[in-house]
């Protein structure tokens, strides 16, 4: 778009500011995304509750949360589709409320459903999308060619999008989102509807993107499998950020192992385990859940103490699902049960 040298010397005026002036150059150290007290309400329902979050440049940041947890709302706010009802959100140092147009030309947005016209050919979709970003001519053709090759789509360029598989469509859509060389790419549930092979393939592409330069990726997901692959995760539940950190660090918060015990009267058993062994056993989904180091040595003791009452015992390394349960006190729901 514009650079600082073309910006008018006079201070920007309201109204014209969005169009004519170049935003102040962003310091290299500014976070790619930064929110402060970000709040959004749909009528009475609070979708985002005073969210403070910073995504650093150059990382793959995952927003993990159940459906209805607020991540789609956050995604819409950051992609400039929706103005938040409270607090601030800055993308690449620019305010989403005031500088929407400047943000739009510097971010790439890949939605859960591909933003492609299925009745058009792959190449047409990319060309038209390029035009929307102000790209044209030989420069655009060169970029399209590059992306088609990078995503191994060159031989499908003149196929109608509707003839492509879900995985290929997703790749075309990703290419569309990258045409204008965005500094930040927002992706909403990028692996939805993909088979395992296409998922692995997509993640390879995403990691290659991050490795290539200073591109930042922000990915929303409700899949643990995807979340594991992010550099850092923000865990969202009921509009609040309940956890933040690298997947390994988050799992490290849980002391050692997770033991899940099936029984007929979980509340009673929980209380008795607490009396006997201490710690913080909890009832989650009708089962008693215990976090403690050295799980394998602990289980025989547990069985000996309550052999008559225990029907099943499961020992596991903590997963992100356990992290979520640990942080929120309830199970990670993949269905929007609150709605």
């Amino acid at each position, binding site marked *: *778009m514009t650079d600082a040298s073309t910006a008018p010397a006079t201070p920007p005026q309201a109204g014209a500011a969005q*169009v*004519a002036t170049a935003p102040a150059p962003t310091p290299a150290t500014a976070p790619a995304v930064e929110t402060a007290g970000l709040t959004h309400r*749909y009528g009475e329902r609070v979708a985002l509750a005073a969210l403070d979050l910073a995504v650093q440049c150059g990382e793959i940041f995952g927003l993990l949360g159940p459906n209805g947890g607020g991540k789609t709302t956050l995604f*819409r706010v950051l*992609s*400039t*589709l*929706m*103005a938040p*009802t409270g607090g601030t959100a800055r993308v690449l140092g620019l305010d989403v409320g005031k500088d*929407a*147009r400047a943000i*739009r*030309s510097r*971010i790439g*947005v890949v*939605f859960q*459903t*591909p*933003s*492609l*016209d*299925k*009745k*058009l050919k792959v190449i*047409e979709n990319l*060309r*038209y*999308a390029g*035009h*929307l*970003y*102000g790209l*044209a001519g030989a420069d655009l053709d060169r970029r399209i060619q590059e992306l088609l090759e990078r995503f191994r789509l060159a031989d499908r360029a003149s196929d109608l999008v509707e003839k492509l598989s879900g995985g290929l469509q997703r790749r075309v859509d990703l290419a*569309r989102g990258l045409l204008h060389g965005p500094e930040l790419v927002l992706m909403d549930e990028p692996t939805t509807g993909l088979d395992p092979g296409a998922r692995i393939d997509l993640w390879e592409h995403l990691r290659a993107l991050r490795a290539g330069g200073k591109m930042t990726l922000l990915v929303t997901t409700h899949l643990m499998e995807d979340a594991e692959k992010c550099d850092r995760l923000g865990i969202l539940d009921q509009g609040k950020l309940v956890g933040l950190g690298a997947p390994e660090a988050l799992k490290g918060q849980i002391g050692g192992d997770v033991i899940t015990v099936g029984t007929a009267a979980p509340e009673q058993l929980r209380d008795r385990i607490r009396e006997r062994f201490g710690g913080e056993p909890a009832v989650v989904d009708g089962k008693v859940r215990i976090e403690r180091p050295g799980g394998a040595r602990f289980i025989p003791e547990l069985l000996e103490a309550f052999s008559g009452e225990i029907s099943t015992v499961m020992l596991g390394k903590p997963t992100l699902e356990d992290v979520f349960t640990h942080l929120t006190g309830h199970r990670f729901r993949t269905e929007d049960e609150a709605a």
Partner: protein
Amino acid sequence: MSMESSLRLATTTLWKREMVRFFRQRNRITGSLMNPIVFWLLFGWGLSGSFQGAAVAGRTIGSMEYLFPGTIAMIILFTSIFSNFSLIEDRKEGFLQGVLVSPAPRLAIVLGKVLGGASVAILEALLFLSLPFALGLLTEGAFRLTGWEFLHSLTPLADARVGFWTFLLLLPILVVFSVGLTAMGFRLAWGMDSTAGFHAVMMGFLLPMWLLSGAFFPVDKVPAVMRWLMRANPMTYGVDALRQALQLHEVGLVTGLFGLILPSILTVIFAVAMVWASIRVTTKRSEGSLA
């Protein structure tokens, strides 16, 4: 890139997309062109016995001729409906969200869609106008109506009335009316996420609007309440402008010089208002569902 060139580039590309899509979906031609033609033929012939022809200047205007301008209006309306169905599909299937997060000006979304829809409508209206000539099966009146009588004058049925000029007069009215109706459809379809909802608008609002536009029966021969409804209907003036341009001013709203000018001005105002309303609704950022 400057605002103007980004607007031009985005508008052109969205317009082009409409055209490419139109030519790839043949069934749209059936829906928006063949249906009105069948309608015209069935009603025109069906009513030809019971239609009280208006005898003017030694000529009787029959039902086929009376319904002709209204059929053009119907073609434009149907084309508008079809192109705005695709607006709803764009929203549902995801194409629109990609446009909304791009730096393309919102104005380009309106202009691309409205000009795209209007181009298709004009194209179909012109096809319809040439139809009686191509079929060669209609009467002298139909030839005259289509604006092709300058060609028709080569045949033994020669008629001295202007043809080419009729056509030139008709074209700007077609353009403005098409823009107005397509923009109205855009305004109605924007924000809708199901085509079923737009079906309801079509049956409950757009078709009655067409019926009450003077396309089907004249304004001055109906009960008072209906007459006011018809006079308040902006489509009435578009249909009337077409009718006047087709030199059917004998059955127009007003006779004389104002006969063409007045409905034309009102049609321009309608188009401007609809485009304005469409631009306004797209620049509002949603707080609820996806904008």
